[in-house]
């Protein structure tokens, strides 16, 4: 879908264009407070079709929790997740996929890991064979197809995890720091796979701490601080001229303690 790609390149810089893309998913006053402590605090967020949203923020800001709430892996304590105008349900989850920071590999061969993901979605026969072939080729794991997935290197495992997620042809792909523990070459391979997925029109929501990666892969940035969404906007703008104190401090590599009620603020 060349259209989507074109739009992306333009859309990376301009926010009006982002608003034009149709709404795919919405978080409305989304909260998650185990034991009464708000770890995700009344977050409102729009996710638009075909866009790449990068979620950033310090450790413990609630990024991973937010992704899990959006994907339906955790039940929200308050608010709701809306998928195409309707509450998130199992059918909606099947149109999404997620890749975790540490890839979860079944204790089986590479090819069996791919087959499993497709089998649980009821995809069999020649269609499954075709998609497995494609995924192996995409992840460049054809030679390792019959190897146990858990003897692969970290980079290979993450490629397989991503290919497995993409084989399910999701409309929305969540990525939780997919390159956090990878070397530069493996990181590049993963980024290329993400770019390919986006080129096919897949909407992407990803967490990263890497500013360069956010610039390369993000159309928009959502910045979390202490469970709250403190800033959203086009990636280039947020990275260059952040509005919020939290984002500014984080991007400059400072510890930002403002409005963390448990700690007294050291700066005026």
């Amino acid at each position, binding site marked *: 879908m060349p259209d989507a790609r074109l739009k992306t390149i333009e859309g990376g810089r301009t926010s009006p264009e982002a608003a034009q893309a149709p709404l795919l998913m919405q978080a409305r006053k989304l909260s998650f407070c185990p034991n009464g402590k708000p770890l995700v605090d009344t977050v409102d967020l729009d996710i638009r079709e075909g866009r790449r949203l990068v979620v950033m923020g310090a450790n413990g800001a609630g990024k991973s929790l937010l992704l899990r709430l959006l994907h339906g892996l955790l039940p929200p304590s308050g608010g709701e997740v809306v998928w195409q105008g309707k509450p998130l349900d199992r059918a909606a989850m099947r149109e999404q996929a997620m890749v975790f920071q540490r890839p979860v590999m079944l*204790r089986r061969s590479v090819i069996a890991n791919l087959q499993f993901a497709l089998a649980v*979605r009821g995809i069999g026969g020649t269609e499954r064979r075709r998609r497995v072939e494609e995924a192996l080729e995409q992840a460049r794991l054809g030679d390792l197809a019959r190897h146990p997935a858990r003897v692969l290197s970290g980079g290979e495992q993450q490629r397989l995890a991503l290919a497995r997620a993409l084989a399910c042809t999701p409309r929305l792909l969540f990525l939780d720091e997919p390159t956090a523990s990878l070397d530069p070459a493996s990181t590049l391979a993963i980024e290329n796979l993400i770019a390919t997925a986006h080129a096919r029109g897949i909407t992407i929501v990803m967490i990263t701490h890497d500013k360069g990666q956010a610039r390369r892969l993000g159309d928009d940035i959502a910045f979390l601080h202490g469970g709250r969404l403190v800033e959203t906007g086009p990636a280039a703008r947020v990275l260059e001229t952040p509005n919020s104190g939290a984002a500014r401090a984080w991007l400059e590599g400072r510890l930002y303690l403002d409005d963390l009620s448990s700690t007294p603020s050291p700066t005026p």
Partner: protein
Amino acid sequence: MQDFGTTLAEAIGLILLADGDLIEIITLSLRVTLSAVIIACAIGLPFGALVGAFRFPGRAVVTVFLNALMGLPPVVVGLVVYLMLSAAGPLGPLRLLYTPTAMIIAQTILVTPIVAALTRQVIEDLQTEYSEQFASLGVGPLDRIAALLWDARYSLLTVALAGFGRAVAEVGAVIIVGGNINHVTRVMTTTIALETSKGNLELALALGVVLLAIAVIVNAAVMALRASAVRSAYA
């Protein structure tokens, strides 16, 4: 009494001679024990996996019970099975008392809780690793159980081994329901008990060494299988 070396020599002598009676006793021991372990696995693996993989009300209670049942006293199990299978008992008409089937039943009752309780632990640990990925993939309950059992297969082999160990060494239950009848229900452990009561301690000890050897062979075989699985990261 003779020293241990002489005893060992006698045991090896017995095996080398391939004494017909001894072969019969070993064969019956293995048949009864393996049957009990297989049936216990057929029940205990899925049951343990269910308890390990799902949250439901009363789960903690079930877990405590399963773990407690691992310590079932064999004699009590033997007595209960005897009362069931006795001609005066509810299952008397089946005429299973003093048959190998009765011994299989008693051992199955002993081994099933062990298999189920250990399976629950193994599956719960694996479930912790897989749960988010499975939820993300939308894996249904049946597929989840099947996948967890299959992926834990090498750990579950060890579980089956624990059950085998308990069953093959058990004497209290099988002597009550089997009756230790020569050529019919006499197994390794009841033979050892009999020879001990005859004061033939050397022979009893020699048979014990044979029993140990069988247990070692079975364990070594399973562990070799598991080791190759560990090398290929399937376990």
